[in-house]
């Protein structure tokens, strides 16, 4: 009986990799870009010049724990 409780894998079929991968790549890239803008744009690196993005998300950046300034 102990074999059954330790290996419940029998009931769970993974989602095929080919189905996960395209979403993981394109979705993952877009979502990471969003986090970049909240966390690091106009701090250590800049895609835009100026400080507007930095100042706008300033409080969130501090409270989320990203190095800010």
């Amino acid at each position, binding site marked *: 009986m102990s074999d059954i409780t*330790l*290996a*419940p*894998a029998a*009931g*769970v*079929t*993974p*989602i095929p*990799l080919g*189905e*996960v991968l395209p*979403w*993981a790549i394109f*979705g*993952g890239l877009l*979502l*990471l870009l*969003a*986090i970049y*803008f*909240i*966390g*690091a744009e106009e*701090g*250590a*690196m800049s895609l835009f010049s100026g*400080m*507007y993005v930095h*100042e*706008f*998300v*300033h*409080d*969130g*950046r*501090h*409270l*989320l*724990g*990203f*190095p*800010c*300034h």
Partner: protein
Amino acid sequence: MTRNLLIRGMIAGLLAGLLAFGFARVFGEPQVDHAIAFEEKMSQAAGEVAEPEIVSRETQAGLGLFTGVVVFSTALGGLFSLVFAFAHGRVSSFSPRATAALLALAGFIAIVLVPAIKYPMNPPAVGSPDTIAARTELFFVMLVVSVAALAAATGLASRLRAQHGAWNSALIAGAAYVVFIALVQYLLPAINEVPEQFSPTVLWNFRVASLGLHVVIWTTIGLVFGVLAERVLASHRPSYRLQTAR
């Protein structure tokens, strides 16, 4: 299937972001205000001219904070669902709800807690602008190492499972993760740029509020996404509901 999970992950993240915004307003903003008041007092004492405000404090603490926390949390929920789509049935053989809860716990430890132990969150007025590039680099090195190490430890646990059983292999892999992280944190350079006169109480309260904010985000994503994912997966496999019946 992955598309459905991704949408639900972002919904869970959005909900988490709304809760986290409320938490940050109540527990985080007072500490940010204290820190900014200190910053202004110091620059006045140094005879510096006040910098022009690009964005008003009200906007920073309101719409700016809202945007930052909600966008971050929604994106995190989406990424969470993508990792879940890979891990479910591969890394974890538990029910969707249990997998999501465990994944959230692992994510909180590897992404928030472990990097914060070495490079803790800092309020305004802490940290010199000259070292922002180096500090950001070190923070992300710590983050990437921590996540990679936890992924490796998870792989180690599943390889040991056949020989040592689920409990012992998890203990061995967990110990390996802790020892490795301790070594990395010992070797990485320390950063301490807290001004001498800065209130330790404000610093402590700020860091606790920041950790609390992440606890709200990760707990909400883990628990809400688990319920949503279970429904998605159940609707695709009618027999599934029977196996995970409460």
